[in-house]
């Protein structure tokens, strides 16, 4: 697939050390479930994002396995601790082998 996939992530720009922040992520992806049929009655093959990970300076925050029951444009919200200034790295793994990455840095202040 890999057409029109655009990751969007919302992370605060600054936080106090040790603070808890909420992270919201959204990636545009059709998440074809493999259950639908086209006009000729053929099953449209499954094409989804099957895994999402978020790391901060190499430490894991969440690792989520996504299945076909996740909606189009998968949205995920979770909370993370910020022990120091650094960079959040977000990775989405597509069924077709593509990997979509984005990163957001956060400062202490």
């Amino acid at each position: 697939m890999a057409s029109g996939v655009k990751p969007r992530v919302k992370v605060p720009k600054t936080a106090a050390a040790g603070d808890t922040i909420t992270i919201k992520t959204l990636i545009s992806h059709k998440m074809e479930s493999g259950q639908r049929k086209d006009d000729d009655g053929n099953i449209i093959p499954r094409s989804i994002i099957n895994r999402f990970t978020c790391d901060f300076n190499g430490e894991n925050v969440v690792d989520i396995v996504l299945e076909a029951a996740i909606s189009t444009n998968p949205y995920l919200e979770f909370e993370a601790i910020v022990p120091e200034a650094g960079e959040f790295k977000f990775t989405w793994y597509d069924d077709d082998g593509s990997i979509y990455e984005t990163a957001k840095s956060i400062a202490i202040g």
Partner: protein
Amino acid sequence: MELTRRNAILMGAGALVVAGLPMRASASVDDVIAQFTGGAEVGTGDITITAPEIAENGNTVPIEVSSGTAVEILVLATGNPTPNVATFKFGKLAASRAASTRIRLAGTQDVVAIAKLDDGTFVKASSTVKVTIGGCGG
């Protein structure tokens, strides 16, 4: 076959049975749970699942799972063609054992969350969602 009143009633009953079948795929749900827990007992307790009571559109149903001490949370939609929805694993820097997302539901059904707690036990919570329009195409 002549369309008598008796036949019409029989056909109606048959159609009802067929229509009811896809919503009862509970055997595979048990399999998925057993695979996750390794056959361990599943209790109730430190887990909550938040889902709307009525979802007008089964294509995007917002849900939230949270648990105080979970290391892993499995979410299942018991009435979907494939019951697995997602598995959340929380790492060292996860501030809370909670996450929210949007899921697809094929019809009115129970959404189940099972958490593996840090002491190795499993707890379960479920929530019934009424779905007006199913979200699996068809």
